[in-house]
């Protein structure tokens, strides 16, 4: 479920200086392109101003002489003026083409910047996520994280490409028009501007109200959707307890309150657009009345009046758009807040500032009074565990669910750090080594085999990119995976899709063993699982593969197979986060304690199955 949860409901303010500054940091590397883009934008805005100006020249120079009722120029003049008109028209067309080119270039450049910024942001966020501890990923739903790197970043693109630049362009157009109008005839311009205070008042009132309205719509929509999602998930409960009417009534209330907010916002918008249009018309009326008088008194020309009217009309378009931009800004702010929240997530499991290089690893492992609890857990997972494993020893961990077996592996690979005590590899605390170094020497085979998109070969090579195809093949052969891999269409080059859909559980496990063997670590941690869906032949293969992989290494296995515990050099019996018993299989059985009970619960049936 990735729809509407917790911080997906962040609404965002339209403008947040802190966030904007932080976003601008990502734009800075591209400041040169941004500068070019702005230059083209200014050119484009300037070409927008040309139209009315050319109309004015055309009217005053070529048209007006013919309409005073006195065709003084005669047919000859007429022809010359028509040619003049054609010339002006051609110039106009040229300017339009230039404007077209400038606008296209500008949009391309800005798109490029937007895309690059998104790419940088995505990669940076991804790299940060790679550094976060395994605990973070159990806490955060994967779907939500995916949304962060995909959709939320996309929302920012709109801010960069249409938001900021368009606002800049609108402002440039406004300034340009103002300047030209004043320059042509400042009295006329001022007459037209008499409506501006009203425009400002209307816009300001609208902006204030629309902010409230937007917020009301967003919060009520979020509330409604949260209710809907929850009640879809709990629909059976509602039905079983005959509460359909009650929850429908609650839904109806939320729905109506959203409708009210929507209507409110509609009324607000519906007033704004016509109001701005009306003010525009009033401006034109004022111009006509005042400017008309000026023309009659020959203070100014008809061409100037017509051009001023045209400019005045264009003045109002950018103002109308501002409201849309406002919404884009708001959405982008909300997204960036969510993005930065992920970026600010502290890296809890960190490499030390000066990591120690492990000596030639022999594989001696020691836990010294280790206490460990998972985040947000009420109880300790490990309570003061101490043990030592000598190089080359094969140790099996046995225990009831929640006894702390997995926690031991999690600490040794440093997916988590313990609250107390130390975990040592060859006498070095794992916290003093870089994680990369540590994990090169400590391999892990998980019960839930994770295959990546790619070929079989690349999956086996995962931990050791330098391996040749031949070495990959040899690893597969040694664990007995070679035969079925060869049978795949494409063999080692077969593409694995959707985490190895099409492969059986047993085959996936064999690939995982080949992968571990290829990585060749000194210490190997294995979560083995006696999978019921594996046929006897594959089971034999897996057992053989496991023996092959473990040979000559220190190993800790969370044992679910009878054969594993029987062959272990030593068994640690965990109970509620402590080591309750330890020893070899037969000795432990004779003690008739926890191990004996566990054995009867978990393994006896396998023995019976094997025997029968």
């Amino acid at each position, binding site marked *: 479920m990735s729809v509407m949860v917790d911080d997906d409901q962040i609404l965002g303010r339209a403008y947040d200086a802190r966030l904007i500054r932080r976003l601008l940091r990502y734009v800075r590397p591209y400041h040169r392109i941004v500068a070019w883009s702005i230059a083209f934008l200014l050119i484009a805005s300037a070409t927008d101003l040309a139209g009315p100006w050319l109309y004015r020249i055309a009217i005053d120079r070529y048209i*007006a002489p013919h309409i005073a009722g006195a065709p003084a120029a005669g047919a000859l003049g007429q022809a010359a003026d028509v040619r003049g008109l054609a010339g002006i028209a051609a110039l106009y067309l040229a300017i339009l083409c230039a404007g077209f080119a400038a606008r296209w270039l500008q949009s391309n450049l800005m798109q490029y910047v937007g895309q690059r910024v998104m790419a940088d942001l995505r990669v940076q966020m991804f790299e940060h996520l*790679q550094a976060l501890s395994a605990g973070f990923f159990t806490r955060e739903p994967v779907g939500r994280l995916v949304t962060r790197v995909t959709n939320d970043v996309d929302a920012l693109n709109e801010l960069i490409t249409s938001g900021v630049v368009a606002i800049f362009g609108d402002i440039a157009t406004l300034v340009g028009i103002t300047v030209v109008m004043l320059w042509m005839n400042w009295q006329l311009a001022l007459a037209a501007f008499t409506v501006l205070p009203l425009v400002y008042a209307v816009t300001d009132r609208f902006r204030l109200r629309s902010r409230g309205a937007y917020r009301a719509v967003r919060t009520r929509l979020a509330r409604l959707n949260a209710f809907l999602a929850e009640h879809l998930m709990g629909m059976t409960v509602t*039905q079983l307890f005959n509460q359909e009417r009650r929850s429908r009534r609650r839904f109806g209330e939320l729905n109506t309150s959203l409708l009210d907010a929507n*209507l409110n916002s509609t009324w607000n918008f519906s007033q704004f657009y*016509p109001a701005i249009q009306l003010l525009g*018309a009033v401006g034109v009326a004022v111009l006509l*009345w005042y400017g*008309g008088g000026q023309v009659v008194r020959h203070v100014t020309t008809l061409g100037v009046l017509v051009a001023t009217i045209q400019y005045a009309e264009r003045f109002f378009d950018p103002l109308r758009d501002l409201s849309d931009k406002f919404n884009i800004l708001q959405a982008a702010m909300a997204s960036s807040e969510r993005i930065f929240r992920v970026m600010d997530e502290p890296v809890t499991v960190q490499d030390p500032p000066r990591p120690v290089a492990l000596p030639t690893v022999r594989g001696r492992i020691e836990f010294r009074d280790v206490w460990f609890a998972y985040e947000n857990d009420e109880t300790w997972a490990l309570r003061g565990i101490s043990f030592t494993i000598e190089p080359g020893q094969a140790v099996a961990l046995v225990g009831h669910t929640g006894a702390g077996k997995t926690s031991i592996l999690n600490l040794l690979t440093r997916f988590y750090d313990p609250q107390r005590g130390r975990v040592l590899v060859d006498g070095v605390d794992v916290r003093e080594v870089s994680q990369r170094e540590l994990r090169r020497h400590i391999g892990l085979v998980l019960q839930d085999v994770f295959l990546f998109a790619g070929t079989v070969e690349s999956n086996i090579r995962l931990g050791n990119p330098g391996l040749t195809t031949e070495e990959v093949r040899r690893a597969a052969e040694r664990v007995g995976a070679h035969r079925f891999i060869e049978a795949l269409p494409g063999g080692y080059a077969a593409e694995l899709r959707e985490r190895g859909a099409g492969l059986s559980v047993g085959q996936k496990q064999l690939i995982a063993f080949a992968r571990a063997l290829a990585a060749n670590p000194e210490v190997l941690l294995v979560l083995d699982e006696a999978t019921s869906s594996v046929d006897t032949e594959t089971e034999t293969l897996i057992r053989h593969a496991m023996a092959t992989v473990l040979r000559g290494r220190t190993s800790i296995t969370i044992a679910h197979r009878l054969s594993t515990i029987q062959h272990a050099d030593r068994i640690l019996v965990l109970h*509620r986060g402590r080591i309750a018993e330890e020893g070899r299989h037969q000795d432990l059985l004779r003690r008739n304690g926890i191990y004996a009970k566990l054995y009867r619960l978990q393994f006896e049936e396998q023995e019976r199955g094997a025997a029968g």
Partner: protein
Amino acid sequence: MRSQRFWQYVQRYRRAYLIGYAASAVAVAMAQLAPWVLRAAIDAIQRGQAGGRLAGLAGALTLLALAEATMTYVMRTQILAAAYRIESDLRHDYFAHLQRMSMRFFQRTPVGDLMARAVNDIRAVQRLAGVGLMRSVQTTIMLVASVAFMMTLSVRLTLWMLLVLPLITLLFLGLGREIHRRFDQVQAQFASLSTRAQENFSGIRVVKAFAQEASESARFQMEVDAIVRVNMRLARVQGVLWPAIGLIVGLASVILLWQGGALVVGGQLTLGQLVQFSYYLARLSFPMIALGWITNLWQQGRASMLRLDEIFRITPEVRDPADPIALTAPRGEIEFRNVTVAFDGAPVLHDVSLLIPEGRTVAIVGATGSGKSTLVGLVPRLYDPVQGEVLVDGHDVRTLSLASLRRAIALVPQEAFLFSDTLHENISLGRDDAATAGAPNEDGAPGLVAAAGAVSQLTADVEGFPLKYATVVGERGVTLSGGQRQRAALARAVIRDPRILILDDALSSVDTDTERRILEQLRAVMASRTCLIIAHRVSTIRDADWIVVLRDGRIAEQGTHDALLAAGGLYATLYEQQLLREELEAADPEANEPEAPPHAAEVPRA
């Protein structure tokens, strides 16, 4: 738009649409008259007339604009508001429809999918009903009116314009196809990026275990670069669209200046008429642009309505019969008669027959996947059997009214589902009159909610909450522990005072001690009722009147505890294993541990 449902909603707000369209027609008329006044004014100026006449025309212009603004306002508020009302109705009907869907439907359909329809599709339909229907009509009127008015001024100029302006629509359609194609590529690459991220985050342990962070980042970088590439391909075409439209509109303006100017010079047209014409030109350009955009709205709206109709067309699998019998005074006798259940063709229960007389407590045991939950879910009709019948008080449950059947039953599932509401609301959910009857009385007598809470051993926990039963439990009850959640769900069933109580592994997260106390309390409650209990703990099972052992969807054994144990079959094995498990759990860890973990459990926040 073929969806009947869509037009039914529109029909419902017919009045608003008609008023809106009438207002729209008036507004267009005003918009067409304004340039005419402007022309009169310019021609007057040109003739040297000023003062009174000019002031009158300026006044007329203002009045026209005022009328246009008012009508536009009416149009927008009528039609857009109607669209929001349609959205609201549609959402309400959608929810009401989903309420009638069976449990199997929700298991098959991801909530995310249903949510996507509720959020995105309903919005797309609203946009079609609002902006779409409004602009479709307005644009058409505007188009026809503008051309007609242009014609009265100059046929020649109008023909010129009709030659140039449709280029906009053609451009929209032509580029539109290419944009669409490239947009699909962007979407595909976007999906690939999502998949890569998804894969990495789900497999983060393997990534870390094999120290693959750097190479994973490099692969992600490749995906990101690819998306930049396809996006730029899209941007190059998309970036042409608006500037090109601007160019075409500009071209029309150029032709007007050139051709129209020549007409004025030649005396066939006045300057005022030229200006007037330029205004019609502006009013014609917008509809041309809007056409492409409106087409888009229609396409999206239609696709979304189709997706909604898909859901609306599904009839509920479990529903009231045509002539439902009301179960007015339920006794609580349950009978399964040769019941076979299959989900998606895979059989889960085979030919199960079982009679449970009223007032008995029956325990159902068996391994995971043996069909225990499926069996008990048949009683409140969470689904129906494919063969055989389930009877309550001698009535096939399929002949009973669903509401009256379920009113007689309380089922507590293992996965306790609480709503993000107060504990009080969550518990009183079990009973229609509990919302009021259950309020804590001022004279100190425990209300129904508190009484049910006491049976479920919730009292001590609730005392620790800042707002007692008024404490909000957080999204799906996350602020409570698993055991607290299960006990709250149990209280919800107790308050219901049902004839048939079904506990489907309902106390799995409750510790043994608390379970024992709950069962003691429940015994009084259960004595007179029919109870079906799925449980693991020995003590719970042993006390049942009758025990049914399921294996692979069939009844393997049944009888009393002693008889089954003596028989030494499957029950005896299960029993022995469970005893072992409980012994292991009981084995106490040594004492002397330090304080609780640094982030020990907190009291739920209000």
